[in-house]
């Protein structure tokens, strides 16, 4: 589903954010990407739907080359859901309008169709009663659930999560993770940048560990938590699991 082949990326001419990264996510697979801050994990996930351009290598999404200048990027991006660290709901639109905008403008669905789909997904994330509120009137956890529903409204073939719980207060993290766990169990293809190792243990198939722009470890979940091969991954795990 997602193939990342020897991808390198530079910011400006000197700082190399990604160094020869290669990995793949199969259909229905849940892959967690972790690593210390500045390791390039968010950059990597943003390259998958070309929010960030790459300078070397190839990224292939459902058979379509993302970094091909001829690719219709808006059309391709519409098929991949993305959830951001800071939710990024559109503040001037009501919750239900946030869910309808791209359905109507990008997929060309009728307003009624989009509203019905939006209502169904809001119900699914438990926020139907808030449909006519504005994003700023909701809590962080609620906003992130809306953001997930907004991405799902596009009927994506895969979902990308960029630290979806990092901006949340602790008591709100689980309500977001619950939605993500359900999604994973339904067989959604997911690439998730997160520090939530509990989530990784529960639903991930594979875990990728990144450091300084490199993929240091790319292992099956049990292998990763059982016997991480690299020193750097061991150190990282001991730091985040010690509390």
């Amino acid at each position, binding site marked *: 589903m997602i193939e990342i082949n020897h991808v390198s990326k530079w910011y400006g001419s000197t700082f190399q954010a990604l160094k020869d990264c290669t990995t793949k996510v199969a259909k229905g697979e849940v892959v967690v990407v972790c690593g210390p801050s500045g390791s390039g994990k968010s950059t990597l996930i943003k390259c998958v739907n070309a929010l960030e351009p790459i300078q070397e290598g190839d990224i292939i999404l459902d058979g379509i080359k993302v970094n091909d200048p001829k690719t219709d990027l*808006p*059309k391709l*991006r*519409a098929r991949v859901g993305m959830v951001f*660290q800071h939710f990024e709901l*559109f503040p001037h639109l009501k919750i239900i309008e946030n869910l309808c905008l791209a359905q109507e403008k*990008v997929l060309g669905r009728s307003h009624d169709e989009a509203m019905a789909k939006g209502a169904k997904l809001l119900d699914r994330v438990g926020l139907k009663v808030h449909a006519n509120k504005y994003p*700023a009137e909701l809590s962080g956890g609620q906003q992130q659930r809306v953001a997930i529903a907004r*991405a799902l409204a596009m009927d994506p073939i895969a979902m990308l999560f960029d630290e979806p719980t990092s901006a949340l207060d602790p008591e709100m993290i689980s309500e977001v993770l619950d939605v993500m766990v359900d999604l994973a169990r339904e067989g959604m293809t997911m690439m998730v940048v997160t520090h939530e190792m509990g989530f990784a243990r529960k639903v991930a198939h594979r875990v990728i560990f990144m450091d300084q722009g490199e993929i240091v470890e790319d292992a099956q979940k049990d292998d990763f938590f059982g016997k991480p091969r690299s020193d750097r991954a061991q150190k990282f795990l001991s730091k985040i699991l010690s509390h």
Partner: protein
Amino acid sequence: MNYNWNWSIFFEPAPGGTGTYFHMLLTGLWLTIQTGIFAWIIALIFGSIVGVLRTLPSKTAYWIGFAWVEFFRNMPLLVQLFLWFFVLPELLPRSWGLWLKQMPNAPFYTAAIGIGLFMSARVAVQLAAGIASLPRGQKQAATALGLTTLQGYRYVLLPIAFRIIMPPLTSEFLNTIKNTAVAITIGLIELTGQARSMQEFSFQVFEAFTAATVMYLLINIIVVTGMRFLERSLAIPGYITGK
């Protein structure tokens, strides 16, 4: 000071036989309003386009926006009006220049367009700043949903940016109206022009300019009130300008 006050001068017939002095000032006021509104529409249209150009990733777009803004904001308004009114017709091919000079209402169109373009540079800078003040993630979220750049601006970035810059935009609208007084120099007999004629005919300089002052004040109070109302009706609950 030996001055003969005469506040009833407004109700005396003005030379020219079109009515009283008050009526004469009202004609000027109406022309001021027309010029101001026409110029403001031009400023908003061109300012929006140029403001957006200055925020696009394309270097060409940025330079076009940069050149526009620097050209129109670095020359005194008076010089610009002289340029359009006296110099431009001489630079054009003879027949075009002649057509321009003979155009009915040439001072009105020159003033409205000239002031509009001058103000567009200021609107552009404010809009660009408004867009730049939005979190980067907003544009990314719009892009990730499959919206094209144009759709992203139309449905997400501009609606928020315009709300943010509403207060300074109000000031620019007021400036546009006040700047129409400069048009007296190219023969537009707007409010300031009529006040001057009244002074010349009647020698009642204080009465004439007191009336003009009050009229300018009145239009601007109406504009400020109107913009406040607009601002309030567009406020987003819980977000920056909202409550």
